[in-house]
């Protein structure tokens, strides 16, 4: 038997395969494709204090090896989450991480307090969403602001605190260090890469242009994520959860090799809605066949390679 489980602070995960925020809904929506409660965890869509309608206009654009989204954090808001989504998570026995986003420090404090009050076991701070105009993006790129934000959230939340980093910065190291110093329990990275899609149609002598500016995700950004995690893993000791273009067991192992303890699957859920469950099975099979009894064993061996 192999043991795929891991612990981040006191947060238990059956296995290191997590689904990424914004790509998996709030709870069991993928049940038609995947045994959702088999997952290490599901990260909820980013939740704000108030419901948000998100951006007007085209929100999605496929690019070579990936996609751009500018959803603009459409979500039901924390109250509806607690009333309607949380009960389903509990009923279905789904391990989850609450992803929260705010415009101000106060927003984050309030959300953290609510998470604490409801004994939510893990939260992920989205300080890096490129799709909302003012607000949270600013924290994600400024190390002082980020340090202060994480410190104060830490004071208001005792369970597992994960901070999600943006790749759209000059120094990944500075931000990761700030997050660790501020007392976060783990870092997840990367959020989407700033990108733009343009489609030009030439019709009747004129150009018709469609553009979508937002966050790039998918296979195309895997090298960016590997580099980011490789760099931050050299300067911080808290666990790193890797995100970015992960589709296959080989991808998962690559991220382990640069220091990740767990991974999140985002865009690949759209291409292969059953991918998360498949990756758990593939990982288990690989470990079984090659005599790795615990995840830690495997990760140590890979990191020494």
């Amino acid at each position, binding site marked *: 038997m192999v043991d795929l489980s891991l612990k981040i602070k006191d947060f238990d995960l059956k296995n290191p395969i997590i689904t990424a925020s914004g790509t998996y809904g709030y709870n069991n929506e993928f049940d038609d494709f995947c045994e959702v409660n088999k997952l290490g965890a599901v990260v909820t869509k980013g939740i704000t204090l108030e419901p948000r309608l998100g951006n007007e206009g085209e*929100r999605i654009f496929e690019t070579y090896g990936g996609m751009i989204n500018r959803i603009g954090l459409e979500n039901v808001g924390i109250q509806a989450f607690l009333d309607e989504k949380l009960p389903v998570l509990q009923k279905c026995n789904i391990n989850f991480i609450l992803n929260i986003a705010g415009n101000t420090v106060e927003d984050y404090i309030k959300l953290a307090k609510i998470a604490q009050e409801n004994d939510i076991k893990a939260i992920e701070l989205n300080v890096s969403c490129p799709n909302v105009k003012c607000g949270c993006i600013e924290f994600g790129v400024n190390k002082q602001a980020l340090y202060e934000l994480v410190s104060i959230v830490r004071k208001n939340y005792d369970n597992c605190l994960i901070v999600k980093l943006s790749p759209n910065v000059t120094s990944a190291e500075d931000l990761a260090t700030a997050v660790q110093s501020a007392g976060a329990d783990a870092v997840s990275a990367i959020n989407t890469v700033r990108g733009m899609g343009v489609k030009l149609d030439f019709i009747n002598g004129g150009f018709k242009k469609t553009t979508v500016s937002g966050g790039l995700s998918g296979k195309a950004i895997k090298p960016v994520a590997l580099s980011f995690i490789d760099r931050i893993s050299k300067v911080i000791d808290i666990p790193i959860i890797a995100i970015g273009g992960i589709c296959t067991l080989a991808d998962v192992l690559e991220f382990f090799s640069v220091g990740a303890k767990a991974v999140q699957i985002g865009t690949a859920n759209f291409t292969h809605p*059953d991918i998360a469950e498949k990756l758990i099975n593939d990982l288990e099979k690989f470990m079984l066949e090659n005599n790795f009894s615990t995840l830690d064993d495997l990760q140590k061996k890979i990191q020494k390679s």
Partner: protein
Amino acid sequence: MKKNHIGTVENIQEINKNVYSIEFSSPTLEKISAGEYVSILCDGLTLRRPFSVANFENNTTTVLFKKRGGGTEYISNLKIGDKIEFSAPLGNTFTIENKKTLLIGAGIGVAPLFYLEKKLNEIGAETFFAAGFLSESDIIEHDFDFVSTDDGSNGNKGSICDYLEQIIEEFKPEKIVSCAPHPVLKFVAQTAQKHKIPCEVAMEKVMACGIGVCRGCVISLKKDGKTQNATVCKDGPVFNGEEVVW
């Protein structure tokens, strides 16, 4: 029942220039209703491509599609016997009710109406199928009740919109259902509203998840005076024409 399926291509044909008909069977897909759609995995592409069902019988789905970009190019190159991975059934359905129904299709938009027409006729509902195409060579063969072409090369000359009033007048539908490019849909919905005829429209949007979670495909609906978001992929693709914010 899981919604990811592996099918086998049973038939594929170019029925018009750049328009194809493909049939694929899958033991795991037993039922799909008119209005629902399938979303096909295309090699090398990140997003599955959604297509309405033009017919379904004996675990075999028929899709009619027009070649536009990489996804439809990929599908058009499939051969009989090839495997095809797809999600289904997705989305909501047309309402199947015994009403005198006018079907308005334009271009490849006729596809889901084929299946709807069959289902309506099965329950004995009277239908009148009016279809508009750009030109004679674009006409998708079917026993339509009325055809127009923009250039007049076959049937009545002009847009199907130009004939809508006249058709309503003559057929006196209790209900209108349409699938067509956005401007046509809008025109049909507004005309129906003017005549106080209930109208269902099948909308299109670029999709990522197909199940309502990514919020990539939302449109605005007004319901009870309030504007709200709805996803074309899950809340739709079929909407009450009156509720859509055009």
